């Protein structure tokens, strides 16, 4: 199925039940991702980025109220699978995750080699020795010295632990890796090193990435396309080459203007107000309250409009 795209998410909804009412963390998200491409999902904290990652991997907490939509992986709708089928055929086989604060996601009482080989042993039915061999190969890809394989996580620095977490996501050779804020806790030079590793993996192994982050400047290191998330919805998607120089949605424009730049002498701007609470969402456009170019139509929910090869959810382009 070479002509099928890798990931096709349609109208994905994930609401949580709380005492204050349903939290609409992911509310009708659509996006596509092709083989050997990277999409960056950008948004401020609390906009539902991490929930989107969890919804794609079906790693859900107990208080889920609504979970619906279509997630097609290589043409197959995985939302129709039951939990066991999903675990066996999708999670870590087709899509794996590098969790947020991956440095602390490792089990402190297991050697890192055992942890990295575990997905291969469970999902690919490998013997332990073969699993460790594979782990060694992955260590080479991410730049961890081979003798680290018998070390415990506390013996590794933050950057090395992050690389181990990436190796663990790679070991079953999935076609898609979801990275949730992979470098936010790391130092500047380490961060640049990790992005070099990710670029190399993309080039050598042909892996696709979903990179979830709030750091716009570093996200451009990996992005082929960009999706901007605001209050549970994606408000703009487009190619990185078109998005970074000239975003369309007013929120995306404001967000880009708020990035301090090292090389351009431009005064950064900021967005007045705060994102709405995901419990009490405004009707109509969710950004309208903070939007400088709002007009009468914005009280209605804006449609998704195709413009210049990009998709934007804003009345301005209707």
């Amino acid at each position: 199925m070479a002509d099928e795209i890798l990931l096709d998410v349609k109208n994905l909804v994930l609401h949580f039940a709380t005492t204050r009412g349903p939290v609409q963390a992911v509310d009708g998200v659509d996006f596509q991702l092709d083989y050997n491409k990277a999409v960056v999902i950008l948004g401020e904290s609390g906009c539902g980025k991490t929930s989107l990652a969890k919804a794609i991997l079906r790693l859900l907490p107990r208080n889920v109220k609504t979970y619906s939509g279509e997630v097609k992986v290589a043409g197959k709708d995985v939302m129709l699978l039951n939990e066991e089928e999903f675990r066996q055929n999708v999670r870590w086989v087709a899509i794996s995750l590098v969790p947020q604060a991956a440095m602390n996601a490792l089990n402190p009482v297991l050697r890192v080699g055992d942890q990295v080989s575990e997905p291969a042993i469970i999902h690919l039915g490998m013997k332990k020795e073969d699993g460790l061999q594979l782990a060694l190969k992955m260590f080479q890809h991410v730049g961890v010295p081979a003798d680290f394989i018998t070390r415990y996580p506390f013996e590794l620095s933050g950057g090395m632990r992050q690389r181990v977490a990436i190796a663990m996501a790679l070991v079953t050779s999935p076609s898609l890796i979801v990275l949730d804020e992979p470098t936010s806790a790391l130092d500047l030079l380490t961060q640049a090193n990790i992005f070099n590793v990710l670029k190399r993996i993309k080039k050598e192994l042909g892996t696709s990435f979903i990179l979830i982050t709030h750091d716009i400047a570093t996200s451009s290191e990996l992005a082929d396309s960009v999706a901007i998330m605001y209050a549970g919805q994606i408000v703009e998607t487009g190619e990185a080459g078109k998005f970074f120089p000239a975003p369309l949605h007013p929120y995306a424009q404001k967000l880009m203007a708020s990035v301090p730049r090292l090389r351009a002498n431009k005064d950064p701007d900021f967005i007045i107000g705060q994102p709405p609470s995901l419990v009490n969402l405004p009707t109509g456009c969710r950004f309208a309250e903070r939007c400088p170019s709002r007009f009468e139509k914005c009280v209605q929910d804006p449609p998704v409009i195709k413009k210049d090869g990009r998709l934007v959810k804003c009345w301005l382009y209707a």
Partner: protein
Amino acid sequence: MALDTKSKKQAIAVREVATNVLLSVQSLRVWFELRRFGFGIVGHVRAVDGVNFDLHQGEAIAVVGESGCGKTSLMKTILGLYKPTEGHVIFEGKNLSEMGSRGLQWYRSQVGYVQQDPFGALPPFMNVQRIMEEPLIISGVKNRQERARRVRKVMEEVKLFPVDDYLSKFPHMLSGGQQQRVVIARAMILEPKLIVADEPVSMLDASVRVEILKLLRGLQTSHNLSFIYITHDLSTVRYFSERIFVMYAGKIVEIAPIDSLLKNPQHPYTLALLTATSDPDANNAKSFKEVPPGEPPSLVNPPTGCRFHPRCPKIIKGKCEVEDPVDIVTEPDHVTACWLYQ
């Protein structure tokens, strides 16, 4: 290797400082003892190892470095929370280590501190009014109306409008940006001459970050405050400070005015930091970044000579790993501790 701290401390004489210098840090060393089983000293963590600088009245400086380079230890020593192992911190001509408890109380009213994590820095059981009054009560402002007036004035300065809405709120009821404003207002309320801000925006969202930085810069210029801004993010520095101090493994490796540093970085470490900082640009994805391999050294056993030499692409063999680099003035106001410029 154990250092006889007492005799060394007396050996270093206090350097004369110019009259417009507010804060002078002189050959400052902050070493922490490493003990085995609580006894016998087995080594030192050399968090700050020989730092010298003068901060003028009304000047904003930034200290840039990665985590573990000693920037927080430097700041805490300036705040008087750590005692220097060696060297001096001189504020308005008075030596910090010779101040008594009364002196320190005065000193702390002159120096404000903006913490990194605003929520962690605010007591959760106090409302905003109580948080703001606390420093005034401690410094002996007994008149209730006077306190209320000063709280109101400083909250208006940090743009927490309308003030009455905020006074009765507790920290958890405020957003991150509002919490950070409360922290800034609290640091400002005693009308200090110096503000020390430790990564004041790193916990905030991108869209709020700039707002807080602009607020701080506005307060700094309108009150003619001296400002020490501690950060790891070079891209925010240029909107904020006149001079940049780049710190690596306990030492300051480069001091330069911001434009000179950006156009003409001299220390290989500074260059690496600048290269690693991205601007949003789709072309970034097409190429790899040249970053030095490895990680910053342990501060217990730092490398001999230049501390950056194991990672440095421009190492001069036989020199860099042997001799400590000296401070070299390469351009006016631009000082680099690197043998390349000798």
